[in-house]
């Protein structure tokens, strides 16, 4: 007998997929946005079982273990899984909200668009609970498959085609590498579940084939989280893809990659942290530095956000990088830091992309030069732009500062020169990042308006769904900045994974 309560979010999202397909079939062309509404309702409905599961003891539904282990340990619903599922569902909802006006104006197959987003979110939700190699892989493919299609949605646009093709080829390549690594790991340990691999791997740390397997798995996920040197697809894809899709990719898809990486490292490879610790150190340092330095030179906002998201991937990795030298408490603190960073990043990056959509509708372009003097004719989007970009830069009292704080705290909590070196690299990068975020704000507030903008219809109101997306993300970014426990509570709940492992 299955634990239907534990599986309820997946079942609801699955049902939503069916309903969305059906709705798309019967709805007339001008009502296709209702498919998006179906998607939103379904995703929001799936949040409720998360709450009942998370607080099930308080609510008196269930007794005993809060961890629900299913399918022979392959599928686990614990606090970590619940938090990440919540993040994916919310990301999905906000992505759809951002898309409604955008896709409507493009007149391309609206119904399928929303369906594909929900499908991708389903994969991410599955990933959060996966505790064996095959389930993780299937989840990851379910995240990526629909995303390939979404990236190429504007099929008349060469850039969008390029984006989809690049994303697809890289996605396939990384999947192959990931599978190769997994097969090595499976071959040497004879186990598929993380728990089994952990138990079998203690003696394998010096086995070259196993080291190779671990490294290949890391590389495979490295592509998904667009860490340097596996990042080059990301800015091109973000720029070419429809902007809401870029938002989803930079948050939902990336977070899914992180979930895979975190669970694999902590649960399956926890005995061999000496292999992946230094590798992640390098990935973190490179991602931050190269991501930020490249972002400095960007003239297109979406590309800039693309490189900045590469850099943020590095920041998320920072706490992990010293994992090999941490004790149990340090590991927990690192885990907490990464999850909290990811949560904060999700909201501020989605918000930043939402602003880009809103502003691009007024300026007709995402080139930074065309955004000059934005605050003169569109004060509210300009202020929101400042809010999200300064939050990304880590300026209090916006949520980003707390993410940076937990990150620094985790890495400084360790001992040794490597941790200190990484902290210094992170600190320097935080300042570099400030330079280009501040430049965007500078352009919007301090430069004169160019002759070609704003567009004639710049005064048109922003799509209501987008307003909602902006409102939600801005509220979270501001409130969590003033009162960080709102988000860190979830990071706190999720840290149990590192402990249990």
């Amino acid at each position: 007998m299955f634990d239907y309560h534990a599986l309820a979010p997946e079942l609801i999202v699955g049902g939503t997929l069916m309903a969305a397909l059906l709705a798309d079939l019967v709805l007339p062309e001008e009502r296709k946005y209702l498919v998006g509404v179906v998607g939103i309702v379904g995703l929001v409905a799936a949040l409720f079982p998360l709450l009942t599961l998370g607080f099930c003891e308080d609510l008196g539904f269930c007794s005993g273990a809060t961890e629900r282990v299913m399918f022979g340990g392959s599928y686990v619903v614990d606090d970590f899984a619940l938090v990440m599922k919540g993040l994916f569902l919310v990301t999905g909802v906000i992505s759809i909200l951002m898309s409604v006006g955008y896709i409507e104006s493009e007149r391309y197959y609206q119904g399928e668009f929303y369906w594909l987003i929900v499908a991708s979110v389903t994969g991410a939700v599955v990933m959060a609970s996966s505790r064996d190699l095959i389930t993780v892989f299937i989840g990851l493919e379910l995240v990526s498959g629909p995303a390939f299609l979404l990236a190429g949605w504007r099929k008349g646009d060469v850039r969008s085609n390029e984006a989809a093709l690049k994303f697809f080829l890289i996605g396939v390549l990384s999947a192959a590498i990931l599978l190769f690594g997994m097969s090595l790991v499976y071959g040497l340990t004879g186990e598929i579940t993380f728990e089994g691999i952990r138990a079998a791997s203690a003696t394998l740390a010096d086995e070259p084939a196993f080291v190779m397997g671990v490294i290949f798995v890391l590389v495979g996920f490295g592509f998904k989280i667009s860490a340097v040197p596996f990042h080059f697809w990301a800015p091109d894809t973000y720029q070419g893809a429809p902007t809401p899709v870029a938002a989803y990719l930079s948050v939902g898809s990336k977070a899914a990659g992180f979930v895979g990486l975190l669970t694999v490292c902590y649960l399956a490879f926890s005995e061999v942290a000496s292999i992946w610790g230094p590798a992640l150190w390098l990935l973190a340092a490179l991602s931050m530095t190269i991501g930020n330095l490249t972002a400095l030179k960007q003239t297109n906002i979406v590309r800039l956000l693309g490189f900045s998201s590469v850099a943020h991937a590095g920041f998320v990795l920072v706490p992990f990088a010293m994992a090999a030298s941490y004790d149990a408490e340090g590991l927990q603190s690192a885990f907490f830091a990464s999850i909290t960073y990811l949560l904060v990043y999700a909201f501020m990056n989605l918000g930043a992309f939402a602003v880009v959509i809103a502003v691009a509708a007024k300026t007709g372009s995402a080139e930074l030069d065309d955004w000059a003097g934005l605050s003169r004719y569109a004060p509210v989007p300009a202020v929101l732009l400042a809010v999200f970009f300064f939050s990304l830069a880590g300026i209090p009292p916006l949520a980003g500062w707390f993410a940076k704080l937990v990150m620094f705290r985790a890495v400084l909590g360790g001992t040794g020169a490597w941790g200190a070196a990484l902290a210094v690299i992170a600190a320097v990068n935080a300042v570099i990042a400030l330079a280009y975020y501040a430049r965007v704000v500078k352009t919007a507030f301090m430069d004169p308006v160019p002759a070609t903008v704003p567009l004639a219809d710049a005064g048109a109101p922003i799509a209501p769904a987008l307003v909602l997306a902006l409102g939600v993300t801005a509220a979270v970014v501001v409130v969590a900045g003033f009162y960080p426990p709102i988000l860190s509570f979830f990071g706190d709940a999720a840290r149990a994974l590192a402990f249990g492992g």
Partner: protein
Amino acid sequence: MDFPVLTTLIVLPMAAGVAVLLLPRRRPELALPVAIAASLLPLGASLWLLVRFETGVAGFQFVEHVNWYEPWGISYHLGVDGISLLLVVLTAFLFPISLLASTAIKDRVHLYAASMLFLEAGIIGVFLSLDLIVFFVFWEVMLVPMYFIIGVWGGGRRVYAAVKFFLFTAFGSALMLAAILSLAFVARDQLGAPTFDFVQLLGVDLTRTAQFWLFAAFGLSFAIKVPLFPLHTWLPDAHVEAPTAGSVILAGVLLKMGTYGLLRFNLTLFPEATVDLMPVMATLAVIGIVYGAVVAIVQTDIKRLVAYSSVSHLGFVVLGIFALTAQGLQGGVIQMINHGLTTGALFLLVGMIYERRHTREISQFGGLGSVMPIFAGAFLFTAFASVGLPGLNGFVGEFYVLVGSFLSLPVWAVVAATGVVLAAVYLLWAYQRMFTGPVTLEENRGLSDLNAREIVILAPIAALILFLGIYPKPALDRIEPSVDAILQRIEQTTDYRVPDFGSGAVVDLVGEHGE
């Protein structure tokens, strides 16, 4: 619990800023009057604070303490002592004045007024915070509105100046954040639980090496803000390009955040490093005094001249602080207030003449004394205060600083004294070129003298300049206990003995005092 007056002081300007933003956009003329009226509220609150403050007590008063993020020991902890009290009052005092002097701002006034009010909240927060994370948050918060004020409403090279200001400060804060976290980790190991609470951190025992590095990280961040030579290069750009009100706030209170930080955190948390590095900091301060003054002499732009004079004056403050004597520290604190008043007034005066002539080149003026007698008088009065003429406030601060530093660092004090002479050179020479003699340029002939609004702006500052110059005792009485407590702490934790009159002990840095 008593009425949370300190929180009120922070929340009032913040709420006023939001309110100004919400004013109807079609009525830009409302923004400034509303902002001015709103900024009188924190002034009132700060005056209430001043009256209710218990003189002669060293510790923090009006303390508020609420847990903010318990697992890490971050708490919303506010308090005021003799050092921060006057700075808070100065801040609340200068904001209505600089808003009143902002009538030249016509573009996006809402945003401007709101930025100023947010800035006020941030600055007051910095002076009141007793938790290092909260302090850091406010420290960063004030960066953004200042960035906008310089960058949006500034002069020709405003964007360059704004970005430079932003990056310099941000670089310092990144280091400071790392230092704050390291301090908390040491605290966790020693006290059992992590804490960022300033008062608790005083109980943490740091090794000499740790003190040195933490002093360096905090000190660098504060030294950029002061600015201490050779980190001052952002200052002339920022001051010159900022709008008048921005310059007033920048010089008047923002720079004091640096010296305040040195005094509040470096001296108390890292006393050993303070004693070790005393000659280094004093040397940098003295270089700043002389260098700032010499560079000021050769400026052709009057606003740039005043900007460089700030480098020189702030050097006096730092010298006073690192003299580590009762007189030096008191002089340092009172000099912070004095500089806020006199330099603030000088920037206001420069702004007034700029609004009339749209130039700040000294050579473009001449003989203004006969055209604008009130303006000339006000300028001379302020210049004398800045130079340190006895009877005006500048004298009190510089005298205390020089006496205090002579006790512990006689050579430094002698060199610093030349700064007083040089100050007379650059300010009075500028006065001579601008105001005396016949009117040389036709454009200057029809200039109108100060109007009623401008006199209202300047009068309160002039009154305070005179008051503090003649009767500084009320201010000094409030500063003294807090300053003495800092020195006592240094004496308790190090071998250093504070020299005083009659002790006959000129400090020797090994720590064995005379007799």
